[in-house]
């Protein structure tokens, strides 16, 4: 009977990287088909196969870690490095949108009226809903830390309660932001102000939805006893991602909502 003499995880051959790559092809060409030929079938197929890939790939990781015990300390270290590098790549992604915002707003062109906000743009009042959104996300940072400490102390009920509150705060933020989008007197096609505002806040909102989904999965895993008080990297990864989303909002609030008004 052979057994490994190293702490690494030699993964079973998996079809999900292939289906994931093909789903990316279908999504991108689907976008082109939608833009140019008014057909959404390829895009829908791409999004469906992408969802199927993500579900099965991450389901397999839970099976490998929680049920098969492959996530040794060394493997967990690798997963930590991976999540940190992914979040760094997301930081660079947002840096691009902030660069675009500051490029246009620090030296507004004569076409905009030489001022920022540009002539004719009525910005949102930063002391109204945007400030509430800031409070909501900061509070969710507190509740997720509460959840983590409860988990480490083995307090099952508190962990479930505080994680649920965190998720509900995330949903509350999303609903508030959606209502704000309906209320803005400007649109994405209102010059460079509209473009930078909606691209930056729009992608942030998408990340809030992704983060809330990740936290919800952690909630169900905790319900099903997957986490122990000393081994719960999936939750930690979700918490890191959530704090990242919170920090991006703080930059957005200070730069676009406050300084940019």
């Amino acid at each position, binding site marked *: 009977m052979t057994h490994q003499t190293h702490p690494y995880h030699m993964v*079973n*051959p*998996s*079809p*999900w990287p*292939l*289906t994931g790559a*093909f*789903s990316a*092809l*279908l999504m991108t*060409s*689907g976008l*082109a*088909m939608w833009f*140019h*030929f008014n057909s959404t*079938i*390829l895009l829908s*197929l*791409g999004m*469906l*196969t992408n969802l*199927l*890939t993500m579900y*099965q790939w991450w389901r*397999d990781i839970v*099976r*490998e870690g*929680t*049920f*098969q*015990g492959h996530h040794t300390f060394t493997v967990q270290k690798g997963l930590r490095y991976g999540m940190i590098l992914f979040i760094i790549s997301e930081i660079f992604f947002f840096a691009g949108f902030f660069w675009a915002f500051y490029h246009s707003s620090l030296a507004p062109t004569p076409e905009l009226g030489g001022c920022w906000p540009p002539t004719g743009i009525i910005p949102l009042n930063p002391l109204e809903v945007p400030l509430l959104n800031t409070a909501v996300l900061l509070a969710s940072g507190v509740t997720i830390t509460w959840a983590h400490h409860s988990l480490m102390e083995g307090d*099952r*009920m508190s962990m479930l309660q505080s994680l649920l509150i965190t998720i509900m705060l995330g949903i509350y933020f999303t609903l508030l932001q959606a209502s704000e989008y309906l209320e803005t007197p400007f649109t994405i096609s209102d010059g460079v102000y509209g473009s930078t505002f909606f691209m930056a806040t729009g992608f942030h909102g998408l990340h809030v939805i992704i983060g809330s989904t990740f936290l919800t999965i952690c909630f169900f895993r905790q*319900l*099903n*006893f*997957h986490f122990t008080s000393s081994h719960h990297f999936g939750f930690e990864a979700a918490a890191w991602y959530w704090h990242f989303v919170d920090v991006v909002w703080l930059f957005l609030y200070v730069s676009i909502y406050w300084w940019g008004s």
Partner: protein
Amino acid sequence: CINYTPGLKPVVSTKTPPIIFATPTKLTFDSVYDYAGKNKVPELQKFFQKSDGVPVHLKRGLPDQMLYWTTMALTVGGTIYCLIGLYMASQPKNK
């Protein structure tokens, strides 16, 4: 006359039994969550660690296979549809 039946002992205890709620069967604060399921992780661990050579993405058998084939069919079929569509889109428009 002494109340004595040789060879026969009373089967049922003649002591008074405790009243029903004096000794509860379980004393735990988690009881309200028990309906959500017991901890099934140990049995899942035994199940997924069976050395039957089946890769992890098919380990559960039929439901895994169905999902796998659905994903593959949609992905490969979609890719063929995509390549045909891209080929057609690259043709010059016939005036």
